[in-house]
């Protein structure tokens, strides 16, 4: 029907083109998740601090990032980060697109993670905060020892779901030509004139990874639901 030749994608081609992109996609996902959660938690704390000079900039940042398409943000950072900055990073001038992608994803995902963490912090009952204060804890002790650990734990399934979405979104670095999983497949497809097979295989790989991860998140969710 299609004249597909999937056997064409042998180990040689995969190790030559795809593995490199696969690692970059994974790297980008992990760095953006960790960086995004840390930055996002700080943003959430700023918004909930009750101090206007902290809350307003954080709100503007989060709402601004969330009202713009990711592709635009990727292009923005690629355009704006000066070439001198890449020279500071070892091997930076050869991997401009990749480094710019990492910075973009941390900055962009922080806005989304911050909304999740904010909801998590707000889901902790007032009694917990009051109990901490009754024990004589300061604001920061209260946050660090009482509120954040619980908020984080409650939000683990949603944070992981967001990570799966993030992993899918890493394919958008296509816009600046960074070498990710999708680029690996499409490059191989172009060189050997097998575009259709390449995109189908890419779809299968993304599907298997995302489906597997979300299945695991679902199981984790059930486990946590019992504890609470």
């Amino acid at each position, binding site marked *: *029907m*299609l004249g597909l030749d999937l056997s064409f994608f042998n180990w040689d081609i995969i190790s030559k083109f795809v593995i490199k992109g696969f690692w970059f996609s994974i790297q980008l996902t992990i760095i953006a998740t960790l960086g995004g959660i840390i930055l996002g938690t700080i943003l959430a704390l700023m918004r909930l601090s009750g101090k206007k000079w902290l809350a307003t900039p954080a709100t503007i940042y989060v709402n*601004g990032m969330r*009202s*713009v*398409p*990711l*592709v*635009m943000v990727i*292009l*923005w950072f690629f*355009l*704006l980060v000066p070439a001198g900055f890449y020279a500071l990073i070892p091997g930076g001038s050869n991997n401009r697109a990749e480094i710019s992608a990492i910075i973009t994803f941390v900055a962009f995902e922080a806005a*989304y*993670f911050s*909304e*999740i963490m904010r*909801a998590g912090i707000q889901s902790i009952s007032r009694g917990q905060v009051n109990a901490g204060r009754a024990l004589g804890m300061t604001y920061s002790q209260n946050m660090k020892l009482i509120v954040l650990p619980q908020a984080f734990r409650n939000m683990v399934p*949603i944070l992981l*779901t*967001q990570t799966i*979405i993030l992993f*899918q*979104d890493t*394919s*958008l670095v*296509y*816009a600046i030509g960074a070498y990710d999983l*999708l680029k690996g497949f*499409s490059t191989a497809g172009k060189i050997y004139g097998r*575009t*259709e097979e390449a*995109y*189908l295989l*890419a*779809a299968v790989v*993304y*599907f298997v990874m*995302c*489906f597997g991860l*979300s299945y695991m998140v679902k199981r984790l969710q059930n486990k946590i639901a019992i504890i609470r």
Partner: protein
Amino acid sequence: MNWDWKVFLNDDGSGRTYLEWMFDAWSWTLAVAGASWVVAMVVGVLFGTLRTLPNSPWLVRLANVWVELFRNIPLLVQIFIWYFVVPKIFPAMKELPSFVLVVFALGFFTSARIAEQVRAGVQSLPRGQRYAGMAMGFTTAQTYRYVILPMAFRIIVPPLTSESMNVLKNSSVAFAVSIAELTMFAMQAQEETSRGIEIYLAVTAAYAVSAFAVNRVFAFIEKKVQIPGYIMAGAAGGGH
């Protein structure tokens, strides 16, 4: 930093200014997003409802497969598949303009997310609602039409709002198959004029304004259809 906003009045080489080009591109963005939204709503509501049917395990399974399939593959990959692979399977589709293919891709991609929300909305209703419909002698179709769906729709207005804003933002991915929308305009105009900051600022503002407008329209709808005494739960985080 010196601004040069006059760049928008320059001729782009085909007799129109960059400003006119940008407004053309903006209307393409709105067209892609609007058409995809309609596809996503129709298909999403259909499959979302199928997933909650009480006595049709095969329909439920079919709808579940649909949702998992379209939810777990990145939008960009789906667009490439609609563009490169699908016309090979159905040669009749070779005639279709890439606009239609992108609308299918973005529409079906979003339909999976909307189906998920419709399902959640239906399942959040107390069981008594369904039983009340049955006790009135309604058929399953009537129960859904008159009891369940009107309630479910009202409950899912907040997540539908963010999903509709997502359709608008996700339409930017259409640049990958050369639809002349805002992102494509930004990339090309930046290359031609090398006034990237001004161009990107204007395009970013256009996206933000459009997303905000969608947000206001839905806030209005939410207020209009509100059920008195019923607390609407806002959905937390997630999605782009």
